[in-house]
């Protein structure tokens, strides 16, 4: 087993990793990455994710991921004066996001390196 595969598998099984989110790992990563820049409510999250990732999270998908992230303690809701409740990243959420992004970066690095060597592009 390569070191990279071992790391990726470990991340998927870690209690704090995002691997357990299955097909919601994508929205979860986008939401956590957005909240890493500061607390946001639902619509601000949608716009921010659309801006930096080019993906528009539909309302049902967004709140499905938000409720699961909140249930896992990776984000928390803040008090609000109006009906739009902002969320912020917790320490556990920051750890999980960092581990997940490190794994993704390792995969991206390997892919780019092999592309550069075997396909003549860089």
């Amino acid at each position: 087993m390569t070191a990279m595969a071992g790391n990726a598998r470990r991340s998927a099984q870690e209690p704090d990793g995002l691997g357990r989110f299955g097909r919601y790992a994508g929205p979860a990563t986008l939401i956590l990455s957005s909240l890493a820049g500061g607390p946001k409510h639902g619509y601000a999250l949608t716009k921010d994710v659309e801006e930096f990732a080019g993906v528009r999270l539909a309302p049902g998908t967004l709140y499905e991921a938000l409720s699961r992230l909140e249930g896992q303690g990776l984000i928390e809701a803040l008090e609000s004066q109006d009906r739009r409740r902002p969320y912020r990243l917790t320490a556990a959420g920051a750890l999980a996001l960092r581990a997940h992004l490190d794994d993704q970066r390792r995969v991206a690095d390997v892919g780019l390196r092999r592309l550069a060597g075997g396909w003549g592009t860089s």
Partner: protein
Amino acid sequence: MTAPPPAPDPACAPPDPVTRRAARLVRWYPASWRARYGDEFTELLLAEFAERPRSWRRAADVARGGLVARLTGAGLTGHLREPSEQARAGLATAACSLAAFLIVGVAMWAQLAIGWEWAAPGAGAATAALVAMSAAAAFLAVLALLAAIPLTWSAARAFKTKTNKERPVRRSTLCALLGSGLVVIGSRHFANAWPGTGAHPALPHGFLPAGVAAFSWAGTLSVSSYWAHPGALAAFPAAEIAWMAVSPVAIVAAVVGVAGLVRRVGLSPRVLRYEAWLASAAAAAMAVFLAGACCWVLAEGSGPGLFHAGTIDIASLAVMMLALSTAQRATALARKSVLGPPPR
């Protein structure tokens, strides 16, 4: 000079069409989810409407999200926060699935048992089917009694303490008692009034005591293909037609009461593990019962008299398969939550 009329209170003003549209979409979600996320989700929808007034993809996504939230609330996704909450939701759903399974399954079983009283089946498949279904039904009855012991104990304690906190438990208990009481009384009445079996309840008149078969037949009288033939149904006695309409309501009341008890009564982790173990055993018995039913329909479905399988029996098989798969999923997740994660 008269004073100007007071400005209307915005809180009392009727919602505009856009707000009503958002509120309609939010109704896809269960009440508990709406209580937590409803306001902020409505705000998000209103902002989305302002940007893109119409989108069927968005509506479909909200509907899908609402259904997932409902499945989560029923303990069928494993995403509830507290293990005990997950276990209770899973067990309540397993109980509801078992009830749906038994309503159509017992109707089928009673048909075969009464058919045997008239004439023993000529083929081995029907005999094997009835033996398997009877054994599974008896096992399920024992499991139900064992499962009811801690629930009854906790419900009795709720009646004894009489605190406001226990009020939902008392309400669920009354609902279960009234529903099941009505089912038992009505089934006894119509079983005794029916000349089809007629034997003393304790005397074997075929494969099973006649009274048991007649009681089961009367209790599931509403599971009938006569609903599709109003002309033939109109020839039935009025009391019997009324019972066909009332008995499902009573059964639903009993099941809702039991499910409410499972969700609300105070059960320790040890009792939850015990109930989850019983639910697993019940799922296995349901599989045996279903195997027997399939054996009859597939091998002997073209038999004579009551051994002939009709469209309603095929539909019953489909309902039983769906109920079994739901019960297995709910039970597996409930067991997982009370037993904890597997050791690494």
